[in-house]
């Protein structure tokens, strides 16, 4: 972060000015869950209020209440000191509250201007028609006001994630939003895009907009936040100021126990036999001459910038993409086939997008756990539900998957528990090499530590792991060794002692 950390001005708390928006003892329950339990907090004009909490802490429920999608069971809202109600999206809009969700509320095949003014189109002369010229002019003005230089008639489907986010913000600004709620806005942004977003947020602050910002990233919590509220299990754990706290303290508040952020590992002194050897692997997906070795008992990192070919390497190893040259030797035998052969040999790919590539979200935990092991469990081809029940209960216990039962739909689990199910299904299939592509993406701090502990146990039992991660700190803490990629090639290998964030960055970047 290049800019000065903005410090909280303590005088404001004591100032007579009421908060722009204040929530008092807001509660919301769903069947079986108290999603929010008497949560109170306020946000003043021109400040960024950080909202921290693990998945399931109640952040999304709170957001849905703020935008009027859900109605609070109990509690009061105050706007500029006056009691108000938020029962619909219209109420929220009238109060100047705009929510920017992670899943954008944009329509892909409308253009930017149409999206910004969806539902508020300037009327044309004929009833029902739209004054296109005014629409585009108004959109242009809004885009200029947030410093986004783009033609408003461009179709949204052709925009990248960062640009779509700018359109979302433009939409909120055009509605004269005075309270802007942002849900992990940097989750899909590059560093440069993040900087642009932060610049914009600082400008909005200067204009007196109040911002409620949900984040998982400590760095931005401290760089951007004026005030931090921590939620846990639907309860407000406290409000702190960035200058008066530390990341460790925040993590303790979030998870309610001391999670050591250094993820302790049992590093193998003498790694076992070579499990995977890749020689001169090239693929039309843009990787060339990849050489790497993974031994039993090791966690090997695969780092590099996004787009350096990390995912392409693991897909080629797994056989999900065809290779054009090179050898893959697994367990001493050459491997040339597709994913079915890989799975049979004991390779497991745990993809980055759990929901679309790793799981059948609508099916039960049990079904998902046995899906890769069906051949092994039921050689006769006949399905035995009781056997599934037994196998899955064992895995649920072994992996400590938090689910009411094996019959729960996977979609209802938290991100960390979903990831455990993906790992479990490969474990059931007898996998020995686990390839992880961003294993902790979208997973909160506490669950991350659990996932790493699980991987540590797997390799201690004689398996091995090859792990892609963009979080260099994770690679440094968890891996025995790491390969760093640059532009489709292996730029270098770092041993345990050489493994520092600095070295990774140096190898991964173009040096002048």
């Amino acid at each position, binding site marked *: 972060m290049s800019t000065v950390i903005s410090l909280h001005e303590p005088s404001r708390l004591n100032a007579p000015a009421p908060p722009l928006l204040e929530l008092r003892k807001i509660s919301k329950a769903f069947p079986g869950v108290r999603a929010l339990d008497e949560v109170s907090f306020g946000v003043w004009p021109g400040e960024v209020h950080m909202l921290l909490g693990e998945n399931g802490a109640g952040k999304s429920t709170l957001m849905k209440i703020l*935008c009027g*999608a859900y109605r609070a069971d109990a509690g009061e809202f105050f706007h500029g000191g006056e009691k108000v109600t938020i029962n*619909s*999206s*219209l109420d929220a*809009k009238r109060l100047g509250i705009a929510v920017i969700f992670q899943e*954008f*509320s*944009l*329509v*892909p*095949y*409308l253009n930017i201007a*149409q*999206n910004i003014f*969806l*539902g*508020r*189109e300037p009327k*044309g002369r004929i009833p*029902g*028609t*739209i004054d*296109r010229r005014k629409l585009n002019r108004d959109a242009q003005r809004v885009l200029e006001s947030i410093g986004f230089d*783009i*033609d408003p008639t*461009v179709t949204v*489907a*052709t*925009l990248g994630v960062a640009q779509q986010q700018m359109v979302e913000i433009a939409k909120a600004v055009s509605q004269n939003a005075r309270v802007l709620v942002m849900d992990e806005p940097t989750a899909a942004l590059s560093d440069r895009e993040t900087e642009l977003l932060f610049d914009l947020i600082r400008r909005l602050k200067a204009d007196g907009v109040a911002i409620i910002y949900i984040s998982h990233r400590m760095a931005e919590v401290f760089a951007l936040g004026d005030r931090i509220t921590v939620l846990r299990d639907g309860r407000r754990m406290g409000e702190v100021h960035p200058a008066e706290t530390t990341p460790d303290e925040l993590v303790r508040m979030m998870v309610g126990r001391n999670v050591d952020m250094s993820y302790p590992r049992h590093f193998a002194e003498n790694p076992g036999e070579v499990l995977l050897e890749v020689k001169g692997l090239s693929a039309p997906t843009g990787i060339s001459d990849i050489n790497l070795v993974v031994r039993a008992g090791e966690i090997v990192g695969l780092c590099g910038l996004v787009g350096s070919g990390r995912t392409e390497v693991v897909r080629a190893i797994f056989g999900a993409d065809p290779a054009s040259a090179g050898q893959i030797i697994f367990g001493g035998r050459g491997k040339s086939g597709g994913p079915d052969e890989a799975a049979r040999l004991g390779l497991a790919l745990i993809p980055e997008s759990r929901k679309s590539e790793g799981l059948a979200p609508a099916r039960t935990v049990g079904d998902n756990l046995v899906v890769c092991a069906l051949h092994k469990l039921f050689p006769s081809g006949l399905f035995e539900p009781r056997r599934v029940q037994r196998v899955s209960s064992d895995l649920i216990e072994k992996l400590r998957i938090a689910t009411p039962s094996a019959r729960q739909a996977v979609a209802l689990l938290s991100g960390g528990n979903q990831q455990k199910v993906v790992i479990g299904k490969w474990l059931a299939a007898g996998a020995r090499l686990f390839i992880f592509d961003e294993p902790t993406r979208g997973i909160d701090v506490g669950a991350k530590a659990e996932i790493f502990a699980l991987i540590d146990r797997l390799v201690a039992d004689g398996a091995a792991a090859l792990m892609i991660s963009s979080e260099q700190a994770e690679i440094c803490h968890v891996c025995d060794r790491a390969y760093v990629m640059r532009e489709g090639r292996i730029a270098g290998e770092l041993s345990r002692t050489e493994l520092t964030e600095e070295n990774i960055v140096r190898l991964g970047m173009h040096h002048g």
Partner: protein
Amino acid sequence: MGEADLAVTANPLQRIPGVAIVLLLLIAVFGVLAPGFVSAANIANVLVQSTLLLMLSLPMTLIIMTEGLDLSMGAVLTLTSLMVAIVSVATGSMVLGFAAAVAVGLAFGIANGCLIAVLGIPPFVATLGTLGVAQGLALIVSDGQSVVGIPQSVSEIYSATLLGVPVPIVLAVLAFLIFHGLLYHTRFGTYVFALGGNREALTYAGLSPTRLLIGVYALGGAMAGVAGLLMTARMNAGHPTAGLGFEFDAIAAVAVGGTSFERGNGWLGGAALGVLAVGVLRNGLNLMALPSSIQVASVGALVIFALFFDGLRSRS
């Protein structure tokens, strides 16, 4: 976006929509193979015959853009065509017959919309159900017999010309312009893109997806009523299975025209070209004296080819 623009100008061929190339290919093939294909009379014939399908394909484009489907359109067309026949025979009035057809079509469209938007029944199942109902009603009101003795005021619709242009073509062009204006220049049209692209965005904007969706299906029903007039005029009779399979051709034309079944990505111009492609294909096979069963199979093959061709192009 600068990059995308550059890519487009670098290869202008890529800009030509796939459906236009498919249509030109079909014209070239039948120009060589089918005797009498390239003649003013036959070209006029293809155009006039395509008008009926266009009337269905325009609303079908909107319906598919909402990630929906209307399988009942052919059966509702049968029913509205019979309504035109029965009412005009009984009263002697084309206008009353037309009004009855649009009313019946509209009723079915609204029913489809309510089943889908209010009760949440998947479009495939809901419209399959109304297909059965409409077909059954058609058999009941016609007693399984053709309705003949259609007044001249009805049959004239198909044969008359306006300033030298056949009336069906005038009506089709008019319908196209109305739908074009509706989809691209009105609030309703903008929201059609959102129904398929991001329904939540509508809710957050304070709009009712339910009412909009009913509106889209109601349009489909009403247009089946308009098409019913053309059909009865064309056959000079009402026939209890006249509309059989028209929903298939309409969906085919829309798909060939490049409208996606996902995310609200649709194109009316493409649907019109798709209608012509289906029309040319059927006409060409007719001229080659191939049986109609081959035509159905060919339309199916055309859909598969067009989508495959589109996929190839977007990959290259």
